[in-house]
């Protein structure tokens, strides 16, 4: 039995679809109810929905054997897991964005609002820039509008939210996509099952 942590939301639905196409279906997951754990003994999988940013925690701690998490989460929390495959879905970029017409004044410390403190810190440390990190949990776009920060570091998919708030991406830090991750110990004790699953998903994604 492989325990799979799926990220709640649109990405998770896509991922579930891929798993199902690969023979790991689970009919009970499509019933409308409030259950959180779904099992298909025949296929040997047990799925559960968790908050996307928590997937790596479930996997790192072994509650889930495998999971799907965005590269942004993996970069930010650096969990001790294996990154088995790039599913090439849920694609977006980690960007620095600012109000339109923003000019960086390098004489001053740069104020950066973000959910991703570690990514932001690493990025500016590489540039040798002194920054002041403002950790926010949502609606990051407001920070530069209200002049609380100079820039934001956040995920940009289409850029619509930015545009509508009169912001624009100014630098791309790293491209992001969804990754298949595995707990390091599960990978050893359930090697056959996990390798087979990873192989099937790889084949499925490559033919698509």
């Amino acid at each position, binding site marked *: 039995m492989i325990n799979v942590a799926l990220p709640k939301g649109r990405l998770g639905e896509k991922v579930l679809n891929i798993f199902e196409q690969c023979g790991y279906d689970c009919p009970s997951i499509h019933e409308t109810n409030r259950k959180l754990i779904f099992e298909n003994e025949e296929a040997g999988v047990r799925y559960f929905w968790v908050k996307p940013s928590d997937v790596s925690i479930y996997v790192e701690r072994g509650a889930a054997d495998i999971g799907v998490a965005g590269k942004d989460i993996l970069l930010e929390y650096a969990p001790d897991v294996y990154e088995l495959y790039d599913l090439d879905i849920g694609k977006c970029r980690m960007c620095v964005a600012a109000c339109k017409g923003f000019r960086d004044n390098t004489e001053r410390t740069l104020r950066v609002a973000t959910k991703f403190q570690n990514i932001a810190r690493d990025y500016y440390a590489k540039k040798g820039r002194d920054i002041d990190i403002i950790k926010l949990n949502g609606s990051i776009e407001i920070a530069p509008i209200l002049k609380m920060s100079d820039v934001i570091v956040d995920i940009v998919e289409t850029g619509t939210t930015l545009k509508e708030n009169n912001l624009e991406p100014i630098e791309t830090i790293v491209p992001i996509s969804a990754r298949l991750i595995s707990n*390091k110990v*599960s990978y*050893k004790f359930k090697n056959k099952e996990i*390798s087979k699953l990873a192989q099937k998903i790889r084949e499925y994604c490559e033919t698509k």
Partner: protein
Amino acid sequence: MNNRTDNIGFANEETAVMSLSKLYRQYGFKQFKMSKFEEYDLYAENKDFLLGSNVITFTDTNGKLMALKPDVTLSIVKGSNDTFTEPEKVYYSENVYRVDKGTHQFKEIMQVGLECLGDLDIYSVSEVIMLAKKSLEAISERNILDISHMGFITGILDGTALNDKQKRKIIDCISEKNTLAIKKYCDEFNIDEKTSNSLVVLTGIYGTFPKCVEEIKKISLNEKTDSAVAELENIYEFLKQYGCSNGVNLDFSIVNDSNYYNGVIFQGFIDGVPSSVLTGGRYDNLVHKLGKKSGAVGFAVYLDLLSRLMSDDNDFDVDVLLIYDYNATVAQLADTVKNITESGKSVKAQKVNSGSIRYRQLMKLENGEVEVLETND
């Protein structure tokens, strides 16, 4: 992964320490009891070895900056007499203080381990790895020992013109088993096709030793990697001779800092524990950094990780709960308790049964008479 409570060989940490110590003594290892503190300088100079630089420090009465031990190996190496006439074989069971990766707070960790220092040959190295495997087997039948060789990885990377930072990136990908990223970096760093193929294969390798060793023979590039393969094969033969080659896998995703480790490295896993419970390897480079000449190999077992699986939760708090009233004399009570304990049972004597204690038997001492009120077996 299910939390299996039925597969741990020890009831608690103390019995674990005892049986592991016994195992190590059998092979001529002597216990090394050390002080809780060490001068901070030792750790400041070897930060990378500790994988995280946080140590608890305090100022000693003479003004020296001291640290609560985050690690035992460094102290043992520092104190070794560096002779080549006879190897030093020591084991320890100590508490160390480190920052927990999850909570970012200091944590006391119970560590049992052993070190072998001196002019090492293939026998001493194999013996240590055999003891690592036996330690795991003592903990649980469901165990795996993964073996890797730093010489193989550095051997492949030595042939390239990569700088340290680029090598670090490659090694990180190997430890994540991230084959796609390896390919990407190999292109980016202009690594030749043969080497890049070796790296990709290396990253993907996982499985039983005999199967994987054939695969790595195919991707061996030079003398250094050849000799690493030969050493691994020798070790495996040794383990076979001791009947503990089951569950020994080859896995290059366990990589340690090559500034400290040079030869074979290994990690042990127990089903049900989400991270490695045993880590070790050959660390001649660390010894040389500390200004000594000998070779060294050793490992540590992290017992705190096992505590969750240990079957210490009994169904009963005591065998007998003895209730007595105000009329009971001390002598009567002592007599009754003595009788019960001498029959090998545990007993708790108190005036009332509040219902919070789980007992096998409920007894009552009244007017000098003992009466069994309830039996729960």
